[in-house]
């Protein structure tokens, strides 16, 4: 009896988290007359909301932009970020302590401090409305470098020495010896970076005004606020397009998402 009550309460809590998403997806298939109802099954299912959405906003383009930006940033954070992480962990070079110190200090600086100067820099460089503005300021990522650095420190020095004796270059050691061993760290940094970039909305709102360069969260925001979306069903259709790929990926990689996104904090 007590146990049944426990599961009832837990189930109600779970419904609070799932129902809004299910309702949202259901509403995108409802005609305007049904949009406000609580039901999850449309009486007269329709694709009109999606047709109207694609006709009114460059959603396909925005999804491609988002994918392009998030993929490029993630690849760069992993590939380029591995180099300083390796140098900090295994090479004794002048200024190493300083570079490590600045990287740690960066974690303490709130993003609000640098947001406006960065925006001014992008405007002065003439990068407004370009992919450069969305990608270049994020090519490296301090928490990412630190996490890879910490993981690289656990890889025994003897492996580096052996690889050097074999005549491997330092870059080959990073990608040929360290990467295969560092898969968990790479996955964590990759997931956190990809999700952070995919969901980011304030930065694109600052540096992109042209619809053809907008990322999907930005387009959703502008489309909803600008009134271009019209009915609720069309707004929610745009939101659904943005989140369904994430939900699908999450369904398969749930454990990795949770361990990466919540585990990173303790690191």
């Amino acid at each position: 009896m007590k146990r049944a009550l426990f599961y009832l309460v837990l189930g109600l809590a779970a419904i609070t988290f799932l129902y809004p998403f299910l309702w949202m997806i259901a509403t995108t298939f409802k005609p305007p007359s049904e949009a406000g109802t609580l039901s999850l099954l449309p009486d007269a299912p329709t694709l009109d909301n999606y047709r109207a959405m694609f006709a009114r906003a460059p959603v396909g383009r925005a999804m491609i932009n988002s994918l392009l930006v998030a993929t490029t940033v993630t690849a760069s954070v992993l590939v380029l970020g591995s180099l300083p992480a390796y140098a900090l962990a295994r090479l004794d070079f002048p200024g190493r302590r300083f570079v490590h110190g600045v990287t740690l200090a960066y974690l303490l600086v709130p993003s609000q401090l640098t947001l406006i100067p960065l925006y001014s820099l992008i405007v002065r460089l003439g990068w407004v409305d370009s992919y450069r503005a969305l990608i270049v300021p994020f090519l490296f990522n301090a928490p990412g470098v630190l996490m890879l650095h910490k993981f690289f420190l656990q890889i025994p020095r003897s492996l580096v020495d052996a690889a050097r004796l074999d005549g491997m270059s330092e870059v080959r050691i990073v990608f040929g010896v360290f990467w295969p061993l560092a898969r968990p760290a790479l996955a964590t940094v990759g997931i956190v970076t990809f999700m952070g970039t995919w969901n980011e909305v304030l930065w694109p709102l600052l540096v992109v005004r042209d619809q053809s360069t907008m990322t999907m969260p930005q387009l959703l925001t502008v489309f909803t606020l600008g009134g271009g979306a019209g009915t609720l069903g069309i707004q929610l259709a745009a939101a659904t397009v943005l989140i369904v790929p994430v939900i699908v990926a999450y369904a398969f990689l749930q454990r990795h998402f949770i361990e990466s996104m919540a585990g990173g904090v303790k690191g």
Partner: protein
Amino acid sequence: MRHERSTGLFLASPYIVFFTIFWLIPIAAALVMVFLDWDLVTPPRYAGTENIELLLQDVRFGRALLNTLVFLAVNIPLQVALALALALALNRNIIMRSFWRGTFFLPVVISGAAVTVLWKALYSTDVGLLNQMLNAAGVRSVPWLTDPTLAMPAIAVMVTWKNVGFYIVLYLAGLQYVPRTCYEAMAIEGATPWQQFRNVTWPLLRPVTGLVTTLSVINGFQVFIEPYVMTGGGPLRRTLSPVLYMYKQAFGYQKMGYAATIGVALALIMAACLFVGRKLAAGKEAA
């Protein structure tokens, strides 16, 4: 080794160049811009302490800070209570644990923009789901986002819903360090579940609660997209957040110097909040 020194510098150099351009210079620029009047088009004008004086008298900035306090006053207790309760539930011997955990974590991975658009619909006065449920229960509709006193708490509830899964995972990790023998010993002595919670679980989880609070404060000062989409900062500026205000000054009015001043002030205020929080926590620990 000479070779190692030069290779190390070579491998780190792109990163050094990057953080100089995109972190160090912007931090220095923020401090310089405090003293400038600059619209990004005409050359900047030295403005002395005008921006600082303006900020100290700016009722809108004061309002934005007050709004953040309201947000945190709702968000932190709710977040701690819900995350802890659900973590304790998931820490028991239950079926489908990963399903429950995955469900509560789902909103964490979803874009804040999408969640905000969704909740704007849930909160809508006429057709919103919340009001429909209230109506079904015989309660009159509540103007969640258009009532000045309700709007910010409503946003805080939404953000709690979005983030709580993250904090559940932190509490679950913390609970692994609470030794089972503690509970067994207390159970033998006849302690009630509430006494066990009060005397064992809660004190042992204090570091996690501190972390949850710290992260919530940082998060609370970053609120932007929620009021931007839901209310535009209204009604009566009661949901104007500091970052939204900064965005409006920079993007809406091209007041770069003033926007940068807001950024610097925010960084200082956050640092002060976290410092005081740390002192308070340390004091409690000692007591």
